[in-house]
């Protein structure tokens, strides 16, 4: 058996094959498993690996007017790293994540603990909470343009103007506030999902330790700190990491709500990549950025895989 196959995987079907046709081969399965994965894996190679390698190739060449020129070595990477706008965009992305993700995590966990108190009407509450998460980014953008429109937006008129935060224009057009408006939108969209994911985790916790704790006279707070937190830790790590990955690559809502502006006030790394390619047509450095981002995401993906597998036993 394959050494890396986890033990909980079903044992291979060892019964004798009456036809004996497709048996054969050292492992006894022959080409059959490979025939099953071939179409999907070939497709993924075509749509993911080939574009990736092509980007690496582009990033190592001089590119003028969309024509691939001479070998450039790491020159594009040097140009990228010397560009203050790249570092600015990295800062914006980090700030966005640093505010949005902990908020979503904390509020989500709180909400999950509330839902877990035997709350009624869950069959209505849960699907409603899923709606923001599953919504198209375009719809999210329309929704929040309406809520945050200058002067006539519901939130602008009733909250933002009333508390004297900003009058006349939309917060989305304010250089100092636009990023926080985007954080608000992200928190609105993703907190309910975090809440439901944590809730699913809470629901799957074993009951026995809690009964034992109750017998020992532990308070709710003690049970939470000594039982819930440690039991939920791997799951929280996995969900948090996945949210971090998604928050880092957020493009659509920012693109549609502010376009990275005003100026470069909300230009996250994703927006920076987009603009270097499709606005400035600066393909060399843009490919270099794409490669850097890709390597980062591969590291993220690997982290998620290892934690989910080792700590959570999910895969």
């Amino acid at each position: 058996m394959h050494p890396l196959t986890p033990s909980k995987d079903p044992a291979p079907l060892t019964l004798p094959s009456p036809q004996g046709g497709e048996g054969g081969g050292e492992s006894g399965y022959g080409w059959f498993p490979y025939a099953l994965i071939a179409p999907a894996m070939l497709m993924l190679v075509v749509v993911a690996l080939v574009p990736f390698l092509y980007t690496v190739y582009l990033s190592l060449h001089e590119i003028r007017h969309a024509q691939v020129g001479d070998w450039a070595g790491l020159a594009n990477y040097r140009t990228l790293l010397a560009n203050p706008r790249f570092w600015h965009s990295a800062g914006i992305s980090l700030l966005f994540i640093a505010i949005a993700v902990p908020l979503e995590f904390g509020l989500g966990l709180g909400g999950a603990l509330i839902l877990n108190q035997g709350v009624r009407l869950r069959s209505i509450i849960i699907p409603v909470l899923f709606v923001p998460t599953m919504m198209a980014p375009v719809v999210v953008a329309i929704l929040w343009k309406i809520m945050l429109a200058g002067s006539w937006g519901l939130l602008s008129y009733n909250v933002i103007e009333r508390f004297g935060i900003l009058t006349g224009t939309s917060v989305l057009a304010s250089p100092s506030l636009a990023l926080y408006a985007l954080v608000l939108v992200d928190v609105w969209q993703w907190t309910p999902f975090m809440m439901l994911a944590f809730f699913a985790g809470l629901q799957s916790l074993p009951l026995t330790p809690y009964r034992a704790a109750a017998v020992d006279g532990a308070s709710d707070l003690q049970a939470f700190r000594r039982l819930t937190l440690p039991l939920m830790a791997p799951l929280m790590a996995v969900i948090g990491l996945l949210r971090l990955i998604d928050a880092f690559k957020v493009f659509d809502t920012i693109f549609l709500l502010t376009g990275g502006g005003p100026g470069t006030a909300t230009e996250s790394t994703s927006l920076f990549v987009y603009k270097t390619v499709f606005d400035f047509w600066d393909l060399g450095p843009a490919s270099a950025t794409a490669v850097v981002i890709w390597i980062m995401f591969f590291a993220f993906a690997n982290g998620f895989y290892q934690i989910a597998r080792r700590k959570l036993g999910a895969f």
Partner: protein
Amino acid sequence: MRSSRVALFTILAVAWAALAIFPVLWMAAMTVKPEALMFARPPAWSFTPTLEHLHYVVAEGFAWSLVRSLMVAGLSTLLIVVIGTPAAYAFARFPIRRRDDLLLFVLATRLAPPVALVIPFYLIYARVGLLDTYVGLILAYLTFNLSFYVWVLWSFCRDLPPELEEAARADGYSRTRVLLHVVLPLLRPGIIATSVLCFIFAWNEFLYAFMLGGKAVETLPVAVPKLITSQGVKWGELSVVGIAALVPILAAVFVLQRHIVRGLTMGAVKG
């Protein structure tokens, strides 16, 4: 004591859900709000509903965008189910050389940022003439959806008990027949849940459709800018399009419920 606590938490949870859904309801009201009241200060809460926005959207041919969205999302999902299901099953059932590396490749493909992928896609498509074609868009959607499907369905496949398959093999079924007549019926809930999620992701998708599409394959999300006219932004009409884009999502959410968490956490949390 106990019941008053439940009541308190129920109120809190309902309030939370109301807060999450409120902007959607406000947008729904905008679809029938008369143009004259659109920019009222303070925002108008009550008005006589009008169908002017709906008529405008229909007259502008948005129904065709809806059809194109259905085509792209439907066809790409169908293709994914056909080639993804056997792969997910094989990963769960058979020892495959370098299985872990292949699976990590699948996961990494899913998590890769689309903005980095759209660059090579655009350049390659421009060369081979796949810009603004259904084939081009459907292929591009495979990156995030095929990887998603294989990965999540793999988690469903691991939940299947192998005994039935063993019994069928003992009865003389070939491996292909076991897959078609034993595994597929058992996997049906997982296939439906995962493919509905794929459909939604394709339905919602913006960046690829925006960059790689054009007039011929203009899906609903990228048709939206048509409502930002020289006379100003058509907010009522935008709301109509927004609600239209939301309808399949609402239907899916009520059907899927607990499977959504499983899907969106890549199978790490069994909802």
